[in-house]
């Protein structure tokens, strides 16, 4: 395989990361927010893969696997929570969930 | 060991009085009296032990390792100065219990618990010779006092208790920082980590550091003393506290500040203290006058007495920093005498409030006709407070001014104006509360218990005025040591 500039891969990861962040900040739909967290985690994974391929070590991929595990677990718990919330509030609007403040 | 028991007896007494309430309603107060009696016996033993001996050195010591990690030791020791103040504490402890006899009807067990713990803390402060231990007791006495004000206080108790606590606590932290700075500077030169008083006395500080560290101590002690501009907690705390609390606050707690100045600020930082003396003396003089003026303006009798306390403590500050034998002895005498007279005045004010349900002097008047005993006693202590020769306060103030005159004529002359303002407020109390036409209501005069207690206080005040030498002798050695230190290590 031809070499790919490491920095460019990281740049891509950064862009994805930033996009995920933007999504998290501007979307009010809980499911989309969960998705944006996934985007960010994926971006981090991408960065690991890029780093691993820079050094030619398996560690990057191992870390990616761990990220993947986390993403799965988090999505599992998160979606369970979202379900409960939808049952209770009949909406996915995150801004409705601001009973506690001050 | 006797020193440890001095602290432990009220401590245990306090613990016991908690459950004692379930047994009998009056049990806690008798228990408190009993604990104090035991303490009094201990104090008297100490007095007797030292009565004949030359009062030069430390009379008794306890020295155990406590937190070896920091070289902190459980080090108690007693010299004449401590002995006098511990004696005063126990004496006023009796007064505080007795004057709460009928005033406190609710939650007596917890009340006496707090009272005794405050006393234990104060005695600890007077005995501790490890700086950490000192700070420990310094803070420990706050909590029960806070509860005394916060639970049994008057209408604005929450505010007053809070203010009291925050002032003393924040200033206490400054002291803690100063203590640590001192300890670590000492460590840097000697490689021995110790909070011990005697070891730190040898600490060799460069002047800049000494000044800052001294200021840390100074602020903590002047807040407690209190002196302008750190005094504003006191009127609120004293006014809102129950009578027993006021007695302890005015009689004993304020003395811890003065004690700290004498025990720590001067010996540890003689040079810095001397450099700082003009400022401190000015603060003292300003306190005397400013508080006297404020006292005059008050209509709340307890508030008025509170401001007079500030005024009197100004003399202490003046005396301590004047730093010669007369002024220092005067400061000690002022502490003792003010302890007794202010306590008595607060007891009178408490008695009035208990009877009239007001502290507003505008609503009093003509009480002499209705309650001549209260009147006479108030008169006596007002007169004591205004510095009548022959009574304790005079000796203190006279010696302070005598000594400080040698150091700084202008400040002393300024402070002496306080002698003029004192009768202005003291006699004003008499006028507004006791003179004038009598109102047609009934006021219960002092009974045997109250009169007995008051006569003891009167006797103490008169004794201090007529034969102060019996007390001055105890502090003579310490004061001479201080003046020597100042002379040797001054600038």
């Amino acid at each position: 395989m031809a070499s790919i500039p490491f920095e460019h891969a990281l740049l891509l990861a950064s862009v994805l990361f930033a996009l995920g962040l933007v999504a998290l900040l501007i979307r009010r739909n809980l499911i989309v927010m969960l998705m944006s967290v996934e985007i960010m985690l994926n971006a981090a994974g991408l960065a690991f893969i890029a780093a691993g391929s820079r050094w030619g070590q398996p560690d990057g991929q191992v870390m990616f696997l761990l990220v993947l595990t986390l993403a799965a677990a988090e999505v599992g718990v998160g979606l369970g929570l979202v379900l409960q919330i939808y049952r209770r509030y009949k909406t996915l609007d995150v801004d409705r969930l601001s009973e506690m403040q001050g | 060991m006797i020193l440890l028991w001095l602290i432990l007896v009220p401590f245990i007494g306090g613990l016991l009085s908690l459950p004692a309430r379930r047994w009998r309603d009056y049990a806690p107060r008798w228990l408190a009296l009993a604990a104090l009696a035991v303490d009094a016996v201990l104090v008297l033993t100490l007095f007797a032990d030292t009565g004949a001996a030359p009062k030069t050195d430390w009379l008794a010591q306890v020295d155990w390792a406590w937190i070896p990690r920091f070289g902190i030791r459980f080090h108690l020791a007693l010299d004449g100065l401590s002995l006098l103040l511990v004696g005063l504490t126990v004496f006023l402890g009796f007064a505080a219990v007795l004057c709460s006899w009928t005033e406190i009807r609710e939650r007596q067990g917890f009340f006496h618990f707090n009272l005794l713990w405050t006393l234990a803390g104060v005695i600890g402060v007077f005995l501790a010779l490890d700086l950490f231990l000192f700070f420990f007791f310094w803070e420990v006495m706050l909590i029960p006092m806070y509860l005394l004000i916060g639970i049994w206080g008057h209408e604005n108790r929450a505010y007053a208790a809070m203010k009291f606590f925050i002032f003393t606590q924040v200033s206490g932290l400054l002291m803690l920082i100063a203590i640590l700075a001192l300890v670590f500077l000492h460590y840097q030169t000697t490689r021995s980590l110790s909070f011990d008083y005697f070891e730190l006395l040898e600490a060799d500080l460069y002047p800049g550091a000494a000044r800052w560290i001294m200021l840390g101590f100074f602020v903590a002690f002047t807040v407690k003393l209190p002196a302008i501009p750190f005094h504003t907690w006191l009127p609120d705390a004293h006014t809102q506290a129950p009578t027993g609390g006021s007695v302890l606050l005015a009689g004993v707690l304020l003395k811890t500040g003065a004690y700290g100045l004498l025990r720590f600020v001067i010996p540890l930082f003689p040079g810095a203290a001397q450099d700082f003396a003009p400022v401190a003396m000015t603060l003292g003089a300003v306190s005397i006058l400013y508080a006297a003026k404020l006292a005059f303006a008050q209509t709340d009798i307890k508030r008025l007495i509170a401001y007079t306390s500030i005024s009197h403590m100004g003399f202490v500050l003046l005396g301590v920093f004047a730093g010669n034998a007369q002024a220092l002895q005067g400061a000690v005498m002022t502490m003792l005498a003010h302890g007794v007279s202010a306590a008595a005045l607060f007891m009178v004010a408490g008695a009035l409030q208990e009877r009239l349900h007001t502290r507003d002097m505008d609503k009093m008047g003509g009480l002499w006709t209705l309650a001549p005993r209260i009147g006479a006693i108030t008169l006596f202590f007002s007169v004591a407070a205004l510095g009548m020769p022959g009574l304790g306060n005079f000796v203190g103030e006279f010696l302070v001014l005598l000594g400080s005159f040698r150091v700084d004529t202008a400040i002393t002359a300024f402070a002496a104006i306080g002698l003029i303002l004192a009768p202005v407020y003291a006699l004003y109390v008499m006028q507004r509360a006791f003179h004038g036409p009598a109102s047609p209501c009934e006021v219960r005069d002092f009974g045997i218990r109250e009169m007995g207690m008051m006569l003891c206080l009167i006797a103490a005040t008169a004794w201090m005025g007529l034969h102060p030498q019996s007390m001055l002798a105890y502090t003579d050695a310490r004061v001479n040591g201080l003046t020597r230190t100042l002379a040797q290590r001054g600038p």
Partner: protein
Amino acid sequence: MTADAFAALLPFIVLSAAAVAVMLAIAIRRSFRLAFWLTAGGLLVTLATLPCALSVAPAYVTGLLLVDAYGLFFHALFLLAALAVALLCLAYFRRRDNENEEIFVLLLTSTLGALLLVSSAHLAMFFLGLEVLTISLFPMIAYSVRASRPLEAGIKYLMLSGLASSFLMFGMALVYGDLGVLSFEQIGASGAELGQKPLALAGLFLILAAIGFKLSLAPFHLWTPDVYQGAPAPVTAFLATVSKASVFALLLRFFTTVHAERSETFLCVLGLLAVVSILAGNLLALLQDSLKRLLAYSSIAHMGYLMVGFVAAGLLRRDLQAETIAFYLAAYTLTSLAAFGAISAISDDARESDRLSDYTGLFWRSPWLAAVLMLSLLSLAGIPLTVGFVGKFYVFAAGVQAETWPLVTTVVVGSGIGIYYYLRVVLAMIRTVDTAFLPAQSLHPAAGLVLAVLAALVLGAGLFPQTLIDAASQTPQISAGAPKGNRHSAP
């Protein structure tokens, strides 16, 4: 796997086994008591294996885990805390028909996460430990799904935690991308030229942001009050103690091993975070009416104090740093457990009592419970007699010794503000109200036991801290290979 490695791993193995066992037990037969006893047994057995692990410490296990005395100190702390939380859960979840047993599995897994976290020697384990802890916490926080607040708290924590995890991972990726290594020690080995590695440095800062979130340092603190308030009280207790302490313990291990503290920038940023946290936490708590939120804000401030200790002690000497952090964390854990335990004891899963009005006159309704809460508040405020004071003493000692005056000043200011709101709660508790209409609080024996033990520990370690100091200071060696040279020659 060698015997040594097995011994070192034993606590983790036992704990994991316990988690699985509890899960299986639940699957077989739902019984709250059985689940509790299994959990308690698991925790106790794990505790019993710690000496075994200590005998082989320090030991690397596969390069991911480092079992050393430092970690084991925290293991013991967390296991005890988890035990306390388990007992609190027993008292708290009274509605046994609600299939509540899962809490114990989650408690065990999250404790396991905390244990892994403090022992991790590798970014992978760091990440995993943190996530095991966090993932277990999500359902714990949202545990009472019938109520709306836990759900709200849960989703907030989940989302923000996900965000933080992303930061963490991204940061780790940057570090790895720049350095090519993942174990702390190897990162530390190449840490000397960290200044020339901007990517790695940026990665470390991103990791710091994630840690700041977990520690709720300002400005990453916004979630804290909502989550504390929404979570069931025992879970809050766990969150406030084990979760925070484990992350801080890791922070110390990680950043000292990678020599981040050699970078002035890094220390400045940490100092800044500390200052902002102290001010923001204390100011936000000032007039707070919900006790849980109040304690949340107070925990923000406390993390700030701790960070001051971290920075200051880090400037001085490594073992002092570990000792300071270990002691403070232990003190904070004990105290917070007591505070949240008291809240938990008067709440249940049907009703959370966290308004200040719920505590009005509590002192007269159930004095012992109120006394424990008061004690823990005083400990948080850093008043002597309590272990919190010794913790604060450590912070001051480090700050003064390192002469980081801005930080020390901030701590003083923060403490001053802090006293106000702690005392507000105390005032509410001692307010004398007509108690006839308020029901006396019945105390579940499990909660009573926990609170009694915790109160005894808070007092005991406050009065005689040397034992705890010994335990904390015997863990100075964070990892092998730490450079011996010290920046400062001071102690």
